[in-house]
């Protein structure tokens, strides 16, 4: 009987351990303290994919690979960067649905124990990923993001409350009702260094025929010596 009791205890411990795959709900610890992976630091976009859509501003009508609705195409065909600049909308391509696809550097820090902060040098934007949800305020380019750890080492972020913006700089639109889901994963680089992989899923029934899914990779940099803040540009 004693063996049985010990075995039962072992089983309970294993079941409890298996449950560790999910982040503890309602645990007293902070998001920062319970982080299963360190995302902080300077990360530079390594533009190996979609180079001509990210490093230069594509021409009007060059929308390859985006599953746009007919309505989206009409909006994009009317893209006018000068008008965006004049109306103070030069940051439309720097919103949460597109910013991690920009050719940019990102600085990730903890704003407080339960808020992860992502700053971009291109467009000088700030994203806040909230682990303890609060009420979202007015719509912004970066919207309101909630975050949760996914064990053993991922971060999931969900963003809504966006201002309408562009998936690509040449006016490919997303609406203010778009929802952005992101997964952040870190991997080692051979020979040293780290890669940050961000998988971005944009749902927008108004302008997308299906969720727009891209994954972007970033290399970790030792410091901010190459940090180069530049304001938004619609061109």
């Amino acid at each position: 009987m004693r063996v049985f009791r010990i075995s039962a205890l072992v089983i309970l411990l294993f079941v409890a351990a298996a449950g560790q795959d999910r982040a503890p709900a309602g645990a007293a610890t902070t998001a920062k303290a319970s982080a299963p992976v360190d995302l902080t630091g300077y990360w530079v976009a390594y533009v190996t994919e979609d180079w001509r859509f990210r490093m230069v501003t594509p021409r009007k009508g060059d929308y390859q690979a985006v599953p746009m609705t007919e309505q989206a195409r009409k909006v994009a065909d009317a893209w006018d960067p000068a008008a965006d600049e004049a109306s103070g909308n030069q940051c439309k391509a720097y919103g949460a649905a597109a910013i991690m696809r920009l050719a940019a550097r990102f600085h990730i820090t903890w704003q407080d124990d339960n808020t992860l902060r992502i700053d971009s040098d291109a467009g000088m934007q700030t994203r806040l990923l909230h682990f303890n949800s609060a009420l979202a305020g007015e719509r912004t380019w970066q919207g309101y993001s909630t975050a949760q750890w996914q064990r053993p080492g991922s971060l999931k972020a969900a963003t809504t409350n966006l201002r309408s913006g562009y998936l690509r700089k040449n006016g490919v639109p997303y609406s203010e009702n778009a929802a952005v889901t992101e997964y952040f994963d870190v991997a080692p680089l051979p020979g040293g260094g780290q890669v940050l992989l961000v998988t971005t899923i944009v749902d927008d029934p108004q302008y997308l025929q299906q969720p727009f899914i891209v994954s972007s990779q970033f290399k970790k940099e030792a410091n901010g010596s190459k940090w180069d803040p530049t304001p938004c540009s619609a061109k």
Partner: protein
Amino acid sequence: MGSNAVQRKMSRATAAVLAAVFTCATTAAQMEITGSWAARNHEFLTGDGLPVDFTGIPLNEEGRIRALSYSESQLAMEERQCQGWPAFYMVEGPFGLKIWSETDPLKGNVISYTIGAWEDRTPITIWMDGRAHPSQYAQHTRAGFTTGVWEGNTLVTYTTHLNAGFLKKTGAASSDEATMRMRFYRHGDILTVLAIIEDPVYLAEPWILSRSFQASATPLSPGGPPCVTTFEGTTGQTAPHYLPEKNPFVDEMTTKYGVPRDAATGKPETLYPEYRKTIAAGAPVK
């Protein structure tokens, strides 16, 4: 039945339950990756449209010279028609993934995963049984030799023994010394594959790509039709090629998309944001 016999039976039953729990715990630390994964071609589809588009590839000087010497007329040569794609086409090409596993019939553990073929890429077997990579002198194939381990929920693989082939179909070459490390991340119904490709012969630094796939209820084919060669009128006395500085397509990306020649020909410095400063502001907008 005596008390000892009862205890023995209980011990056996407990051992069986413990074994099952251990197995479940091990399995819980992994992810199911088998099944059909549909391509969502929302990225990296622009590489094959023009003969000289090596944007995003960190070619070294040798790699650039080799890439610019390539003529697609080589594909008219019967012996070159199927030389095509090593394993890394998996994260470059437009097709989905069909993944299945082979399991040990007694222990139930996964011996290998197989990623099905396309017409110009052979199946990739990922050995999960701890076997070593063969000697460097062993046969190289288009699929290469791949081993894998689970790191938590992430499948981590390493591929060696690849035939020389293409980094990009339009002529950026890969050598038989190229290797690829992949990490498979599953988030719900999304499978994202991160690939790090190294080639000491043709790459200046590791080439990092990623690609996402979505779980598909519609089964994908486990293998495309095999690559079958056919005579297209080129006898193969010489391989069609361009001499240095003679590739007529070298500036096509510039004229069509405003992409500088340095970027179109894969200079490593063009893969970082600061390169944007060297591009004339607003030039491509017309």
